[in-house]
């Protein structure tokens, strides 16, 4: 297989997306659905086929020139290297399963062409981010995922709240994109190139102050897409979209794009200690914040949304601690178990008659197909970090990296990570108990669950459970496959004495047990929800929306009115109107001279004649005098 065919990997989903969007409604429905799934499945197969090209230094393919002006010479080019390959495999694989799920989930939807077109376009954009050779193509994919997210969150546009949620997502992530764009411009000015490999190679020669600024800007850019503080308000509302969208975009792929960006530019970002601390701090604070909010949520998907925010915080902490392997490991396992959780949640919502509130569910274990409970439980234990699951190994790897970091300040972050793990276990089992245990509390009528919605859950659940094999630590006899695959891209090698590692593992097990116990004690037998100020505060995400509204949205609207009515109408137009009025008034004054009467004009002649006569006489007198 020629390496120049690598561009087919992102091209396949793009073509299927375009065909679906343009002609999808005219094709038979099955054809459109098959095309959508094939687009992504084909990309998955191609990735496996071309896997060999990623080894060593990777393979670079240039497609055509995009912009060529002066010093700017940017092409559409992709770089299939060791960092990109596992991510591509994960994205295409999980996307294929979610596409299958979506075929079942949306089988009653009439506007299927738009949905599948957007879903495929999203996969293309995500692949553009992953495989980008230069920052401009990455930016194209970056904005592309934002666009598709906007279109898919607001897919059921007839309800205005959905459209507004989509707009909010787009705008908040765009704020993050501004910071990324500033970093892009600055990098071009500093290094003269936008090529990622060249930037990484030249990173050491950029002045330290600039490096700190750049890493902070990149961090803020990543925060936008990954829904970290302070740009996180869009993720919870994004659950207004269909469940396959939440599973794909807001669990596995788009929210991890920020982490991927930081890993891609790791040689640059890791040069500044301030930057790394900032990344870890943001990750830690977000993880804690999101975990507290998840404890009080009532809608099943919002719990999972905040949980995603929290887990992505862990990934940020890993990057800040210096280990790319840790971050990517958690990224991969999280993709598996969070996707399965979302998809199972979609099944649960169907069974509850389109009811989202977990307090109105219960007894789902008996109401639905038996596998639903086991699949959901599999995802839940991975999320909580039960020993030997994939989630356990990946989370533990991050906590180890934080604990063993040379800078002792990182122990604080480690502590926050542990606390968050406790809360994670708590809210995860809260969810499981409220949804599956006890008696059915709801009133809705269940919808049947199509086959396509059920069997994609199994591979993902299994992958989540055994995902630890990807990077099994040497402590338990594993070979750290992922770490060795990444080689010199892996960041800091995390080493610790065996006793430290066992101590930390024991600690983690104790935390999970404690969290489970607390949830069991409180939620095993149903109690009505508590409504007090604390729970409302947590439910509304620490009133972040209200804060943003008061600090940003309202001043913006006031300024808009000022500019439009105050400035344009009153000041600029007012000045012109004033000038026009002055002219009219002056003209009115002058008009008084034109009386239309002959006698007035005759008087004017006489006076004028007098003045002229006087002037001539004066001239005569003066001239005669000299």
């Amino acid at each position, binding site marked *: 297989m020629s390496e120049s065919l690598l561009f087919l990997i992102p091209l396949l989903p793009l073509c299927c997306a375009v065909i679906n969007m343009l002609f999808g409604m005219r094709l038979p429905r099955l054809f459109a659905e098959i095309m959508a799934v094939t687009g992504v499945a084909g990309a998955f197969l191609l990735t496996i086929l071309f896997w060999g090209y990623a080894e060593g230094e990777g393979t670079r393919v240039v497609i*055509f*020139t*995009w*912009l*060529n*002006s*002066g*010093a*700017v010479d940017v092409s*559409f080019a992709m770089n299939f290297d060791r960092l990109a390959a596992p991510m591509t495999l994960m994205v295409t694989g999980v996307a294929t399963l979610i596409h299958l799920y979506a075929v079942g989930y949306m089988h009653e939807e009439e506007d299927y062409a738009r949905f599948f077109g957007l879903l495929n376009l999203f996969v293309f954009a995500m692949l553009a981010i992953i495989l980008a050779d230069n920052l*401009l193509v990455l*930016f*194209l994919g*970056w*904005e*592309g995922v934002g*666009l598709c997210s*906007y279109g898919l969150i*607001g897919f059921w*546009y*007839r*309800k*205005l709240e959905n*459209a*507004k949620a989509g*707009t909010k997502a*787009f*705008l908040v992530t*765009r*704020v993050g994109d*501004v910071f990324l*764009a*500033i970093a892009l*411009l*600055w990098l*071009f*000015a500093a290094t003269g190139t936008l090529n990622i490999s060249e930037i990484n190679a030249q990173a050491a020669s950029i002045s330290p102050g600039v490096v700190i600024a750049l890493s902070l800007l990149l961090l803020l850019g990543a925060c936008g897409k990954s829904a970290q503080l302070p740009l996180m308000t869009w993720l919870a509302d994004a659950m207004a979209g269909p469940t396959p969208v939440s599973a794909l975009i807001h669990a596995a792929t788009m929210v991890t794009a920020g982490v991927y960006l930081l890993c891609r530019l790791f040689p640059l970002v890791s040069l500044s200690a301030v930057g790394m601390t900032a990344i870890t701090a943001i990750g830690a604070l977000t993880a804690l914040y999101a975990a507290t909010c998840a404890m009080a949520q009532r809608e099943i998907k919002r719990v999972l949304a905040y949980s995603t925010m929290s887990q992505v915080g862990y990934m940020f902490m890993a990057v800040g601690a210096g280990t790319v392997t840790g971050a990517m490991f958690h990224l991969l396992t999280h993709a598996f178990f969070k996707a399965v959780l979302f998809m199972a949640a979609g099944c649960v919502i169907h069974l509850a008659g389109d009811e989202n509130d977990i307090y109105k569910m219960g007894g789902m274990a008996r109401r639905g197909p038996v596998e639903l409970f086991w699949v959901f439980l599999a995802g839940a234990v991975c999320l909580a970090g039960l020993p030997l699951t994939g989630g356990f190994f990946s989370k533990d790897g991050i906590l180890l990296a934080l604990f063993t970091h040379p800078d002792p300040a990182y122990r604080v972050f480690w502590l926050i990570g542990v606390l968050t793990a406790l809360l994670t276990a708590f809210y995860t089992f809260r969810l499981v108990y409220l949804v599956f245990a006890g008696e059915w509390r709801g009133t809705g009528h269940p919808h049947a669950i199509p086959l396509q919605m059920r069997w994609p859950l199994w591979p993902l659940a299994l992958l989540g459970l055994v995902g630890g094999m990807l990077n099994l630590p040497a402590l338990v006899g594993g070979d750290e496959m992922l770490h060795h695959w990444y080689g010199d891209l892996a960041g800091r090698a995390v080493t610790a004495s065996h006793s430290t590692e066992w101590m930390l593992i024991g600690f983690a097990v104790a935390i999970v047990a404690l969290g489970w116990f607390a949830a069991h004690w409180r939620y095993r037998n149903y109690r009505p929800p508590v409504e007090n100020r604390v729970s409302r505060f947590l439910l509304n995400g620490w009133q972040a929306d209200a804060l943003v509204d008061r600090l940003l949205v309202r001043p*913006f*609207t006031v*300024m*808009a*009115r*000022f*500019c*439009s*009515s105050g*400035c*344009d109408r009153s*000041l*600029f*137009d007012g000045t*012109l109107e004033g000038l026009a009025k002055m002219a009219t008034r002056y003209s009115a004054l002058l008009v008084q001279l034109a009386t239309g009467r002959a006698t007035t004009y005759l008087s004017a002649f006489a006076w004028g004649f007098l003045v002229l006569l006087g002037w001539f006489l004066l001239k005569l007198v003066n001239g005669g005098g000299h």
Partner: protein
Amino acid sequence: MNAFANLPQFPWMSLLIMMPLCGALLCLLHGKRTNDCRGLALATALATFGVALYLFVCHGQGNERWLLYEDVNWIPAYGIRYVLAMDGIALLMVLLTAFMQISAVLLAWRVERHVGSFFALLLLLESGLMGIFLAYDLVLFYLFWEVALIPMFFLISVWGGEQRRRAALKFFLYTLVGSLCMLVAIIALYQINGAQTGAYTFVIGDLLKTQLTAAQEGWLFAGFLAAFVVKSPLVPFHTWLTDALTEAPAAGSLDLTGLLLKTGIYGLIRVAFPLFPNATADFLPILGILALAGLFHAAWSAYHQDDIKRLLAYSSISHLGLVVLGLAAWQLTAWEGSILLMVTHGITTGALFVLVALIRERTGTRSMQELGGLWGQAPCLAALFLLFSLASLGLPGLANFAGEILVLLGTFQEHPVWAVVALLGVVFAAAYMLRLVQGVIWGPAKAERTLPDLTMREWLMLLPMAILVVWLGLYPAPFLAPLHGAVATLLAGGLP
């Protein structure tokens, strides 16, 4: 004049100017036969576009400074010559003009009253625009400047909306005041140059060699600026545009935003900057600040609007603020980005104005409070609306992004703060554009309507624009290629 020695002899440029003029005369004479008029106008527009396309494909892909040149003695007693010159920048502008006029003619297909006069004015406007972009003699430039002004006035005041008289008068007086300042400056420059060299001439190439004192240069530059700054438009001289665009008939709005605004910026590039380099160098920081102010002021004002046409008018001002910022950076990449952005802005905003006209025809309203849910009623229309809105807000892969990113990359090299501030304006663009999209195509339908989707004529207008939007976003290289030679020389000092 050696730079002009090896250029083709056939008078292509005069053809570009004369063809629409003849078409206009014929339309005027046969005004009663509406179908013939429409066909004639469309044929003329297509023929002009054919010539422009030929020039672009055959002569435009090189790196030379000048592409075409024509020189005929006109009024020797005053040194006025009929000189036309085309370089890469003019070529792109001419191509854009020819392309947009086809859409304008198609958009005006359903005009009821005084059909012959309408098309005649439209074609006269095209002729004037071509002249502005091609003229190389100052009197000729001024002549075409005014020729482009008068049809616009009549288009607005006869076929426009409710407040048309006021809007047309405001437009006319505002731009005329600027033009008269420019006329005074032209004559003064002519006199000064004549007194110095003994050869009284109006040709721009010859006037470049004039030696001016600082005071003279400042005043003359201000005179030219008065005309160009009003036409650009630069805040705070922009209030005529919002009224004019809102009240103009559909084809008039298309021409106004797509083409007439570009003449101001083109005038800066072709006339003002090369003739007065020292005054330009002093003025550039102010120009940059004004451009940024315009970017934000217009974006904020756009957010407040309820009338979608007015919102798009403000968005035009905002985009052109970014264009002028690129010019003020005085950097190669930024200039090429600015010119590309001018072309792409013409197409995207023009397409949006077409769609607004179509929506108005179908629903009878332009207010966002009464619109909504259009996607369910007319999916193709709504999908194109979304496409062009996304292109307008600068989504990578679509038209405006290519120009914008080049402007930002170039500006950052010279004035990083400006580029950062301009990026913030990008968020504002997303805010008002998404508000527009949400108000028009998402949400529940506010009134029960059955709307016809796009007809063949409307597809003919919009499909080429959609294809161009994607093409320019992904592969703008053939449109950037003609610019290299011209821009490099203009930045270095401008001769010849």
